[in-house]
């Protein structure tokens, strides 16, 4: 009896919290739902009744945006650039973070600090020279060049996060591996990496999101339509099709849906990536 009433009491107490959360969630999600609904409407319907749900579903908006406005190409570019960047970042940052966390060498602290500084500068602080450097190296207007720029941009945070994680590894592990005849690269490759799976996943998803969404540097470095990533393609697309309301909404959705899918699949890893990096 008493247990029950305690439970009810607790429920009553948390009622206002639920109320606020529900209201905030609805307000937060309404724009997203509205954009999805609008992409299924006809132009006439969007104009005349922007708030109503679609009376019939116009899936051809998506088909037109995908095939008619080269979103297939943008999509491929985004996948290619993002996946490659993530792989390179994971490999290079784990190598470096291992050295920073576990090895003693002159300059360890200082070089690590030089990496940290990189997180503080606004993007605009490097744009001009970066542009001319990329032309100098024949890497402007190239997906490969953009990958290098993205990798360089993600490294500081990645190293910071993995270093914190590797520092938590017991020294005994490495010592016993050494006794078994493991050299340091073998230890890194055979033991450290597999044991760091959760952190690498979290970091990978985090870098994936950042790279997939990047716009400023792509805008500056990529010229050709066939090399544009999705966010860049979306701006070019909006230039051409803004008066076609429905197609415009479909384009926004095509750019947003892949991140939503990755988010739903790896939500836990992503949030871990954000919070682990921040709380350590």
């Amino acid at each position, binding site marked *: 009896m008493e247990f029950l009433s305690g439970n009810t009491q607790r429920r009553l107490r948390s009622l206002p919290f639920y109320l606020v959360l529900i209201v905030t969630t609805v307000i937060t999600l309404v724009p997203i739902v509205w954009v999805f609904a609008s992409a299924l409407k006809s132009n006439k319907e969007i104009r005349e009744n922007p708030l109503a749900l679609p009376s019939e579903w116009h899936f051809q908006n998506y088909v037109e945006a995908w095939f008619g406005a080269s979103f297939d190409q943008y999509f491929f570019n985004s996948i290619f650039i993002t996946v490659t960047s993530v*792989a390179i970042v994971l490999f290079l940052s784990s190598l470096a973070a291992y050295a920073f966390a576990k090895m003693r060498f002159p300059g360890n602290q200082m070089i690590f600090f030089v990496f940290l500084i990189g997180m503080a500068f606004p993007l605009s602080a490097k744009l001009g020279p970066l542009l001319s450097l990329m032309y100098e190296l024949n890497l402007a207007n190239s997906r490969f060049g953009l990958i290098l720029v993205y990798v360089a941009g993600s490294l500081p945070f990645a190293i910071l996060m993995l270093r914190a994680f590797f520092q938590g590894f017991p020294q005994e592990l490495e010592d016993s591996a050494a006794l078994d005849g493991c050299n340091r690269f073998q230890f890194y490759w055979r033991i450290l990496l597999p044991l760091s799976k959760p952190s690498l996943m979290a970091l990978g998803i985090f870098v994936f999101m950042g790279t997939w969404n990047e716009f400023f540097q792509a805008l500056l470095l990529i010229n050709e*339509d066939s090399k544009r990533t999705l966010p860049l393609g979306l701006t070019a697309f909006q230039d051409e099709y*803004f008066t076609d309301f429905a197609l415009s909404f479909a384009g926004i959705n095509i750019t947003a849906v892949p991140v939503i899918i990755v988010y739903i699949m790896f939500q836990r890893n992503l949030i871990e990536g954000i919070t682990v990096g921040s709380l350590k």
Partner: protein
Amino acid sequence: MNTSHFRSIFQFLTVAALAILLAGALSLSPALAQDSTDILVWGLGYASNYDELLVERFNEAHDDVNIVFEDVLTGEISENNQKLRVAMQNEAGPDVLGGLDVGANLRALVATGQVRDLTEFYRESGLIERIPDNLLSQVTIEGRIYAIPQNLESVGIFYNKDAFAELELETPATFEEYIDVLEAVKDAGHYGYTMGLAGGWPSALMASMFMYSSAGSEYIDVLSGTQPWPDCDNCLDGLDAFQGMVANGYANPDPLGIDYDQSLDLFYQGQSIMVLNGPWFINDANLAEPDFEIGFFYLPAVNPATDIKTLGGIGGSIIIAEYAPVDAAFKVVEWLTSEEIAVQALRDIAVLPAFSIDVPEDIPPLYYQIASETAANVDKIGFWPVTYLAPKVFGDMNQIVQGMIGGMLTPEEFLDEMQATHSAYLAES
């Protein structure tokens, strides 16, 4: 997912990354020799879908030259110019480019030695006789010719013919009559002046049009880019009239919050029934398929004494990069300036060539009207002032025009701001 799975994924990713690194390195090595010469093109001077069509047609007809088309240009003029100039400086830009804004842009490219001198080509190809002197003078720098004027365009008012008929309106011949038309449109609950200044060039275009139509050629002197921006008292009438479009309630609401495309939507939907624009608008309008007929008239001059009929000029010019393979590039340009292609472009998408042709009569009446009026006025409208703005001035003009239209600046203050921006630019260069 267990550990060994994870490791194999990771190994796969690493191998993939290394393979991509290698592929990237290989792609930097020079391409293998081919039978035909590749000519890189960013645009041929028309809308990008039409450019692609032309490229296909060219490649079918030629074995020895192959056009490689890179779709780079977007609606953002300043972004385009920036990409072009940086790429050309690094010899990574197009070999041939159509549709270039001559003026400040051409001058900058010539100054850094990026553009081929075409004087000899003009003489040998006979092109020199086909281009009016006043157009030729704009692509001539210190006695040498660097570009080929490609098309000619002039700005005027496109109107909804059906709505005009319904309201029993005539096309105006004087500025007073134009105001009367605007009043009538306003009384009927429509917008007479379509304005979306949230981004890009329309604000510079419109402000220039009004200054031009009150100050005439005095305004052109302002824009030469090497002289300080003078007081241009005669520009003030035009600016007053421009501001009046909003102040008197002729324009659509929120002119500063919506952009060009959003404003055109008002026209296509029939809420707004006149729009100040250039002939490139026809192609847009055809794609939008409005359910009414479109007519055209020149905006009557604010100051009837002015010596200029309308704003306009060379819409775009063709250049050849200094680093381009010469013979192949000339072949492309010769083909592009042929009468056949020019007439076809006029027929298909209403683009009037700058080299004189006879306007064929069997094209849509609206195309015919604009093409023949533009051709008839070629000596008066051969100058596109907006493109003569120094880059710094052009970059800021959009914001400063917004200031005036939003009532934050008077026309006098507008000119002061432009003057200050212009002299800051002169001090730097």
